[in-house]
């Protein structure tokens, strides 16, 4: 029985160690600012088009489905608040995080994994750099900065999508959509909508780096690491969003 638990417990312990070292390095020199900027470009700017698309469509879909349901109760006017609360609290952060996990946790894991199997990580240590400082910490910082920003953009486009449906398919006036959509939001919602992407960002970057750094077994190993990184970061996104949501509900 204990043997079955041994591997997952050890893996989790290694993950915590990596997390600790990655965070410690944020406050220690040398700081690789160039690497942070390059990663922000790859993760942030690179994900922007697809995040915008997903944001807009989640709003369009939400608006469409909700308006139909609300119409049976004659409550079409409620479409604004419903779209804005769902997207800002939950859908925006989770959808963007899942996208970035698919795009960047895999990217990070495969890049670091290839470096591992071609001895570039060993070479870094041999040539005087800490691979965690040089590779993991910049990716962590870059994701933590860009993911909340991406989420804000996606949230806005989601609201816009909801508006387009409300205005042009259900003939709701602009003010009737935007005013309640805006007024219904309280600080709790906004903070929740920003804390989540921050937590997801840390998760995505660290899970990607973790599986990348422990890649073994050549090219095939890189493939396995990439898959694991995406699967586990996605699973953790759902677990974490549930708990953060719970905390904020009780606040």
């Amino acid at each position, binding site marked *: 029985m204990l043997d079955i638990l041994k591997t997952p417990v050890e893996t989790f312990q290694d993950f915590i160690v990596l997390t600790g070292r990655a965070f410690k390095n944020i406050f220690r020199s040398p700081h690789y600012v160039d690497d942070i900027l390059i990663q922000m470009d790859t993760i942030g700017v690179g994900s922007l088009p697809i995040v915008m698309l997903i944001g807009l469509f989640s709003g369009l879909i939400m608006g469409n489905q909700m308006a139909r349901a609300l119409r049976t109760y004659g409550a079409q006017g409620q479409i604004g608040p419903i779209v804005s609360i769902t997207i800002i609290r939950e859908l925006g952060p989770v959808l963007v995080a899942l996208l970035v996990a698919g795009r960047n946790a895999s990217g990070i894991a495969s890049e670091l994994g290839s*470096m591992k199997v071609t001895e*570039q990580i*060993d*070479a870094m*240590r*041999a*040539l*005087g*750099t800490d691979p965690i400082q040089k590779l993991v910490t910049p990716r962590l910082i870059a994701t933590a900065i860009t993911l909340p920003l991406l989420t804000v953009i996606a949230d806005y486009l989601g609201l816009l999508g909801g508006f387009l449906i409300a205005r042009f398919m259900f003939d709701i006036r602009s003010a009737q959509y935007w005013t309640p959509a805006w007024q219904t939001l309280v600080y709790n919602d906004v903070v929740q909508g920003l804390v989540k992407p921050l937590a997801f960002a840390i998760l995505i970057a660290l899970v990607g780096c973790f599986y990348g750094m422990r890649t073994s077994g050549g090219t095939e190993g890189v493939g396995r690491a990439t898959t694991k990184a995406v699967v586990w970061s996605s699973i953790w996104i759902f677990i974490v969003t549930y708990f953060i949501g719970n905390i904020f509900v009780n606040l």
Partner: protein
Amino acid sequence: MPETQGESTVLEFRDISLRFGSEIALDHVSFAMSAGDSRIVFGVAGSGKTTLLKVALGLVKPDSGRVYVFGQDATDLKETAWFHLRARMGILFQEGGLFDSMNIAENVAYPLINQPALRERIGQNGAVDERVREALRFVELEHTLDKFPSELSGGMRRRVGIARAIVTEPPLLLYDSPTAGLDPITANTIINLIIKERDLRDAASILVTHRFQDGHLMADFRYNPDNGQIEKMPLKEDNQVKTKFFVMNGGRLVFVGTRAELRASTDPYVMKFAK
């Protein structure tokens, strides 16, 4: 870093053992080497040759035994302290270990810019550029400065790896299978470069290989600075002592000796590497 006393031994292993899970990687390995010494390490795949180099570099910690680097007990050093020792070692990884994302000049400059111990000493950019050019000139690849590793052939990548290893002028050089997968002519070029580096600066070197010709060249040839050629060593000279051969099997050093002793060995495993 100031030269400390008692540095005549560049590298010493005392009874080093290491396991990866249930697999024995190193089994009670002991040896010592001084400046100008060469050690040729033979052995089949998985016999612990690469692990030996990784322990010497502090990339892996041994389970038991002690490692002395430049006269200092380095066994329990922290990673940051190891950086200072590694600044005085050069390493060529099996596949070159070049960074794909950087061009050749950046790759060769990497240790100069990133080694904490060297950064302070070298400082200005001009000096780094000059050192990088010099190292690439040494391996005759000065024209590849702006290229990326993926644009070079296997042999050229290996030569860039050598340039990166020697750019810091380290007193100890470790070469992990520098000729693996190369054609014989390119392989000889690589070994000639290693001989040249050894003889010009009296660096200690460990060469891991499975090609017996590599060891033969290292033991019998030397670099003549007068005409810039690699030539056969006069037999009289007592050079044989400086070059020793190791044969590894299952993590153990099963043979340690000179070339003549290697030739005279009757052990069937050792004989595989004698001819």
